[in-house]
């Protein structure tokens, strides 16, 4: 695994905005040497065939972002392709594609420059080939809409004909590629256009293929018997005599890692699995509960060994000299992914090669993990990518692939393994529950002079291995956002990672969900303490973030900030630099909510959101992402509370782990700032604004401060009563 995914590759990729490590920089395809070439692969990013079709190879997971269409737009723009000739595909995982990872709202940010250059270089090579075949100067030729023209003579040739008939010999070194001239945003014809997504038609007629839609000849169905606890449980004895009597039973697979049955149908596999008599050792976490976890968090917050993750100035001195001080504690509960397609995989071991059919957000990690567990070379792992029926971070994890491959090897036939919703939820990698203590000191003018934040959470990177934590053992993706952009001279953020026995992972918008909940709710509390308007207070401390100032002012204006509202109704705002401070998408939201003071029930009436993500590649797709991310945030903020008992999640399905439905959807108004800045991402930042803006709206409506997410009616009611 480590050979596959070096720390350098991962960290370099995550840190470097606009530096394309996800696709190789050099043109690797080489010349098309003969006439009548079947196809031309100018780089790993695209293929052009004699029929003129340009296929852009999408190495990012399609899980609803419309990423394939957007990436193809980037290539087509610089290639000067005719959009109707553009197709996309999702190739089998291969090291030649570099780091195959989809998450963090990184896709456009990581690939925009690289794919632009891939398209531009291919265009230059096509122009060069045409000029050579005509024996004219390439400088007198231009490419437009899939055709190369020689301007003085008016001769022209289509890209497809060039590929079919003319040797294309021009290649680029990495240095040359970096110097390829790119268009200016004002020249864009495809980037920035309202182009329909290429994946949508087949998502309206049942033809779109998700991993779960895979069938192989001779395939059988597997079901795993899972231990009663999320972590650390093991089977100690298995009696499969009753399972064997189930019609359709094929075999029991008893491995150190898992116990499973395979059968000829899904129903038979369920029946046979349910007939297994398994003796469990529940492991060390059998008594873990929500109460024990938060008790351990409360202890951990005072850990004298807490590591500083972000630090500047002298907090102690500044806090001591402050005119006013304030402290608040914020908690958030476990959140599950609840992607609509339960985790599933089809695995087939064929002549020493493992074929896996599923949808993965992190093929590089999956291939490495599979090779390590199966004891084979990575080249023997063939990961066939499908559409993802929701990702949200769940499909970063290779667990289902590993289990299915192990079962297929033992069962010696192709195996399909579909988890039930209950298994999917109980075996999830949750967004960690958290506890944050934030303290601030204000100067006489109300400005913040000192900021001290202790952040207690489980860090997913610890489970993933040493490549995913820093030298202090901290996972930056469990902390991002706590290093906000406000002008505060003295700051410290200390992190205390805690292991709880509940597996944690990355759930849409990841740490900034809880870090910005604390930061942005606390900012509101400090504004109140300083006797200032929450908007003006924020604006007075954003000298380093002019683009955030702009979205904040815009959203306030569009939401009618400061205009009167009926009783028990309030507006709250939040502004963020999510997902990461180095590559922020400047996002601000105003939530307008009505609170029933008798019940604590909160009704969100409207969310207004303004976003500056730089260049927008596909405006309608961008809006869809912002709308969806805001509504995901509402679902998280109002409804989703994962609780723990006996070392496992209590909730089991959509009836007790409820997510947002249509009857709960408020009006969502989105404003995108026109920009020519290098693009960042849109899948997540909107989500992070909702909980703090909502908590602030509840305060504006009632004067009651709710510091726990989700903002459930009993918590709102308790805050209202505490105030009275």
């Amino acid at each position, binding site marked *: 695994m480590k050979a596959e995914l070096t720390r350098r590759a991962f960290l370099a990729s995550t840190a470097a905005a606009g530096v394309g490590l996800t696709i190789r920089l050099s043109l690797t395809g080489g010349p098309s040497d003969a006439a009548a070439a079947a196809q031309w692969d100018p780089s790993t990013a695209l293929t052009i065939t004699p029929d003129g079709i340009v296929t852009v190879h999408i190495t990012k997971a399609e899980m609803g972002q419309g990423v394939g269409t957007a990436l193809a737009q980037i290539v087509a723009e610089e290639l000067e392709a005719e959009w109707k000739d553009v197709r996309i595909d999702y190739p089998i995982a291969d090291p030649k594609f570099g780091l195959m990872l989809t998450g963090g709202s990184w896709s456009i940010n990581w690939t925009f420059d690289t794919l632009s250059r891939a398209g531009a270089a291919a265009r230059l090579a096509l122009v060069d080939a045409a000029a050579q075949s005509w024996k004219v100067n390439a400088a007198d030729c231009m490419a437009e809409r899939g055709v190369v023209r020689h301007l003085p003579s008016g001769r022209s040739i289509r890209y497809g004909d060039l590929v079919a008939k003319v040797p294309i010999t021009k290649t680029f070194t990495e240095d040359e590629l970096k110097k390829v001239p790119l268009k200016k945003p004002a020249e864009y014809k495809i980037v920035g256009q309202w182009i*329909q997504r290429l994946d949508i038609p087949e998502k*309206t007629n049942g033809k779109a293929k998700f991993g779960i839609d895979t069938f192989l000849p001779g395939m059988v169905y597997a079901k795993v018997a899972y231990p009663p606890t999320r972590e650390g449980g093991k089977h100690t004895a298995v009696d499969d005599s009753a399972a064997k009597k189930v019609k359709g039973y094929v075999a029991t697979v008893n491995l150190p890692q898992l116990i499973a049955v395979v059968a000829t149908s899904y129903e038979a596999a369920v029946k046979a699995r349910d007939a297994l008599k398994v003796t469990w050792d529940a492991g060390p976490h059998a008594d873990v509960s929500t109460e024990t976890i938060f008790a351990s968090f409360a202890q951990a917050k005072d850990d004298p060994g807490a590591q500083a993750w972000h630090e500047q100035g002298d907090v102690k001195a500044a806090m001591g000299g402050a005119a006013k001080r304030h402290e608040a504690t914020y908690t958030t509960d476990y959140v599950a992914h609840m992607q*609509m397609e339960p985790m599933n995989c089809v695995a087939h071991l064929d002549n020493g090669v493992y074929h896996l059919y599923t949808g993965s957000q992190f093929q590089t990690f999956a291939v490495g993990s599979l090779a390590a567990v199966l004891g084979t070379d990575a080249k023997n792992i063939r990961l066939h990518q499908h559409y993802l*029926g929701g990702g949200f971070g769940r499909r970063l994890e290779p667990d289902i692939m590993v289990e299915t491959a192990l079962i297929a090897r033992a069962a010696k036939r192709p195996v399909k393994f579909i988890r039930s919703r209950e298994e999917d939820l109980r075996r999830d990698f949750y967004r960690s529950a958290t506890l944050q203590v934030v303290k601030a000191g204000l100067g006489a003018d109300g400005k913040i002079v000192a900021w001290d934040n202790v952040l207690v959470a489980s860090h997913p990177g610890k489970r993933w291995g040493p490549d995913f934590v820093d030298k202090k053992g901290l996972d930056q993706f469990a902390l991002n956002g706590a290093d906000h952009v406000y002008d505060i001279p003295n700051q410290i953020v200390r992190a205390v990672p805690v292991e709880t026995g509940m597996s944690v992972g990355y759930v849409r918008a990841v740490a900034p969900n809880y870090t910005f909940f604390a930061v942005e709710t606390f900012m509101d509390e400090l504004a109140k303490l300083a006797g200032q308007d929450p908007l003006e207070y924020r604006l007075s401390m954003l000298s380093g973030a002019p683009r955030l100032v702009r979205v904040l002012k815009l959203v306030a204006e569009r939401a009618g900030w400061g205009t009167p509202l009926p009783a028990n109704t309030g507006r709250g705002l939040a502004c963020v630099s999510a997902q990461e401070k180095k590559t922020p998408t400047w996002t601000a939201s105003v939530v307008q909510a009505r609170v029933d003071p008798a019940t604590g029930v909160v009704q969100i009436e409207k969310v207004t959101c303004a976003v500056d993500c730089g260049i927008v590649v596909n405006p309608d797709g961008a809006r869809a992402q912002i709308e969806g991310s805001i509504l995901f945030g509402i679902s998280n903020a109002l409804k989703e509370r994962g609780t723990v008992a006996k070392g496992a999640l209590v909730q089991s399905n959509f009836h007790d782990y409820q997510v947002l439905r249509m*009857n709960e959807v408020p009006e969502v108004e989105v404003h995108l700032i026109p920009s020519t800045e290098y693009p960042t991402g849109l899948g997540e930042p909107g989500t992070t604004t909702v909980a703090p803006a909502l908590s602030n709206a509840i305060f504006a409506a009632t004067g009651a401060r709710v510091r726990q997410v989700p903002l459930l009616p009993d918590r709102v009611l308790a805050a209202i009563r505490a105030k009275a």
Partner: protein
Amino acid sequence: MATLVINGKPHNVEVDPATPLLWVIRERLQMTGTKFGCGVAQCGACTIHLDGQAVRSCQTTVAQAAGKKITTIEGLHPEGRHPLQVAWIAEQVPQCGYCQSGQLMSAAALLARKPNPTDQDIVEAMSGNICRCATYPRIKRAIKRAAQGV
């Protein structure tokens, strides 16, 4: 053995009559447009039509479906050009797309019953279908667009 008439075509299947229709349609007949989401009629991803009514195929047994007219997303329109499917593309509704067959089947049953639904009708008919990507505002717009024939 049971005979299931799906999208106008009879299929003879050798299964326990108590088997959920979902698993027969998906895994035996390999008509995969109908999706498995929860198995307990909470999410609507498996919605099909039984004699024109929207039902959850995960909670409908083979015995209950035998002899009735079963319609899946594949049979909603022969070319996939049902007004709702056209509207779904025009409004660019799907994100991940996994729930959308179920959404479309619920919406189609609504329009068959109420060709001009109010906002309230739409919300009532559609709130049993979960979309984790939360494409709800676009679903609502697409249903109205289809109803108005644009």
